[in-house]
């Protein structure tokens, strides 16, 4: 079909896309970096973290690149001062929301939130820290969850549901009280649905979900498996 190939411009660069591709996919193909947090290739995009918001000429609202489909003639801008300021503020809001003290985190130096902060130029947080007292659940024999580090990106929820098919993880509560939970908000160790596959741990962008027995800065996440598993799943008859 001839109409299935589109051309558009991203940051002034003319690029081509296959109909159905998102702005984010096209940008990444062309080496244009748009920051993301809740997005992960292989999982359903949800547009929740708002890091990938871009400007599209003629559209008054900012659009999330992860779920917005490329369209013929679209003019996309990904790095305006306004967008950069918004991204920085959103990262600051995340840092202030819970407890993200990198120095005492097992994921220090292997943390996507940390990378993101560096990328958006966050050198300090300009909103007051909330310092909530959230628990750590270490009842699972191999893994632990530290709710103080959670950014509620929902990657664990989606990977467990969409890839592993267990749906052990979900959200409870709303607004600032929102929390990820296992099963009916019971200790992870007592979960009857968890297969202990560890996918959630490795898609988690921060030090929230970790393998036990790792010292600070040792908890490297292995994301490579996800595109492979997705591919294998889609290839199944």
């Amino acid at each position: 079909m001839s109409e299935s190939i589109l051309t558009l411009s991203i940051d002034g660069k003319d690029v081509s896309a296959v109909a159905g591709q998102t702005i984010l996919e096209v940008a990444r193909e062309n080496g244009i970096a748009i920051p993301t947090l809740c997005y992960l290739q292989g999982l359903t995009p949800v547009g929740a973290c708002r890091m990938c918001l871009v400007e599209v000429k003629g559209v008054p609202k900012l659009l999330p690149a992860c779920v917005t489909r490329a369209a013929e003639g679209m003019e996309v801008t990904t790095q305006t001062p306004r967008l950069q300021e918004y991204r920085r503020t959103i990262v600051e809001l995340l840092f202030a929301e819970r407890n993200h003290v990198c120095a005492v985190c097992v994921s220090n130096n292997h943390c996507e939130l940390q990378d993101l902060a560096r990328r958006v130029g966050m050198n300090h947080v300009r909103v007051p820290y909330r310092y909530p007292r959230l628990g750590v659940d270490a009842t699972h024999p191999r893994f632990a969850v530290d709710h103080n580090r959670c950014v509620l990106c929902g990657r664990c929820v989606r990977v467990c549901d969409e890839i592993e098919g267990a749906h052990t993880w979900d959200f409870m509560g709303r607004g600032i009280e929102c929390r990820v939970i296992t099963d009916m908000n019971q200790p992870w160790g007592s979960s009857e649905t968890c297969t202990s596959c560890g996918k959630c741990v490795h898609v988690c962008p921060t030090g929230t979900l970790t393998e036990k027995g790792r010292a600070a800065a040792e908890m490297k996440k292995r994301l490579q498996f996800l595109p492979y598993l997705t591919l294998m799943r889609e290839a199944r008859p």
Partner: protein
Amino acid sequence: MTPEELRELAEKRRAQLKQPRCRLNVCLAAGCQSCAGDSVFKAIKQQIEARKLDGVQVRGVGCLGLCAEGPLVLVEPSGLLYQRVKPEDAGELLDALEGAPLKRLECPTDVPFFRAQKKIVLENAGVIDPENLEDYLAAKGYEGLIRALTDMTPADVIAEVTTSGLRGRGGGGYPTGLKWSTVAKSKGAKKYVICNGDEGDPGAFMDRAVLESDPHRVIEGMIIAAYAVGAQHGYAYIRAEYPLAVKRMQNAIKQAQKAGLLGDGILGTSFSFNMEVRLGAGAFVCGEETALIASIEGKRGQPRPRPPFPAESGLWGYPTLINNVETFANIPPILRHGGAWYAAIGTEKSKGTKVFALAGRVKNTGLIEVPMGITLREIIFDIGGGIPDGKKFKAVQTGGPSGGCIPEQYLDMPVDYDSLARVGSIMGSGGMIVMDETSCMVDVAKFFMDFCKAESCGKCVPCRAGTDQMHGILTKICNGEATLDDLALLERLCDVVKNTSLCGLGQTAPNPVLSTLKYFRDEYLAHIVDKRCPAGVCKIKAPAEVHA
């Protein structure tokens, strides 16, 4: 049932209704029930039975409007309205049927509250028994549906709605005809119609009143919509906090199914449509259409980015039409009288009437329906009767948490979608909260931010964490602990939350703050710089003594 049989039934009921010498309509909507309206109803019924009064009937009806003076009783055919009726007044009320009106309880109806209104959506409210299908038929109910199904093609129906100029009454003001035609054009093996009855704005009860007073009107609107867009199934999504509305809607659906107005082959035509009630579990965000759809699907009520819009991919991925209760309630009269008739009411870009829930510091609180284009002054001072206790008007908040506060200088502005937007507020679903000089505008902004913070679903970061931060700053300002830096941060957060949030809840959450900052900045500064609350609402602590 065929149209002829339906009309026969209506005729029979009309004749029946003429029989009794007089009838007492007791308001049994939630407002009057909350002040013992049902005891009044029972007392009058007992008295009639005890006295064996022939030709005197008592009926429970929907909202009579002037909630502030409830429980209300309307006497037919004299049109006398009694207010603040107590069960022990029943005897006296019945005595007065023969002679002079009971002055002690009489509510004057020759006042602007009643005269300045124009009732279309509420034409049957307080007049018919909402639990009786025949009452609705007698009031020309389902005539619009008969016309649509027997004389018109779906395209004709959409054209009629387009001609009417009706805009969505849920708040956005999107042209209804355009929405319908989009869903009609969408391709899908199935289509759905959803009525959004998840009214959650503080101070708003328009949808509740319509559902409680005239549920068949909403059902009729939905069937007509389903016919127009080609839907087979519908849901009335009503918040569980409205038990009476839910009960009456369920009752009305059963009646409509029994009468062949819902189900297979409606009115003997080949068109089939059925519907059911779904309860909302009390999340404000479920009024947002994608969150509402997720909730009906049995998922967590969270919005998702649009597009795809529900018109293209909605409930279970099928094309879905979502309209608000009041929007659907406008449809039957539009089909009965024609779109041109409706378009002649209101202003150029905002047609028809709008139902408002008038609340706050105003004498006549209650439910009103006025033509678009009426001024705020007319609503507040004529219909509303002005501010009680000799206090001075300060602002009117419209549109709930998504709206803004409008100061005195705009009182003569016509009420329509565009004028309200120009002054930084919105029509919203129709909540209208009047505030006098005893209200602190910072405190008001804090109240709405507290609401948004509590109702944010938590999915996107700016809404989840941003509203919490904004609420924190507003609390600091109210406590006299904030600095001008905090004010600057508040304004910066308003900008971020408004422009980066995923759905309407977050995108509009800063509006009450922005509008109060725009018109009442001096009050913010008084709290921050002078450490005092001009309205005397905020309890500002005395500054702590500084020890050298």
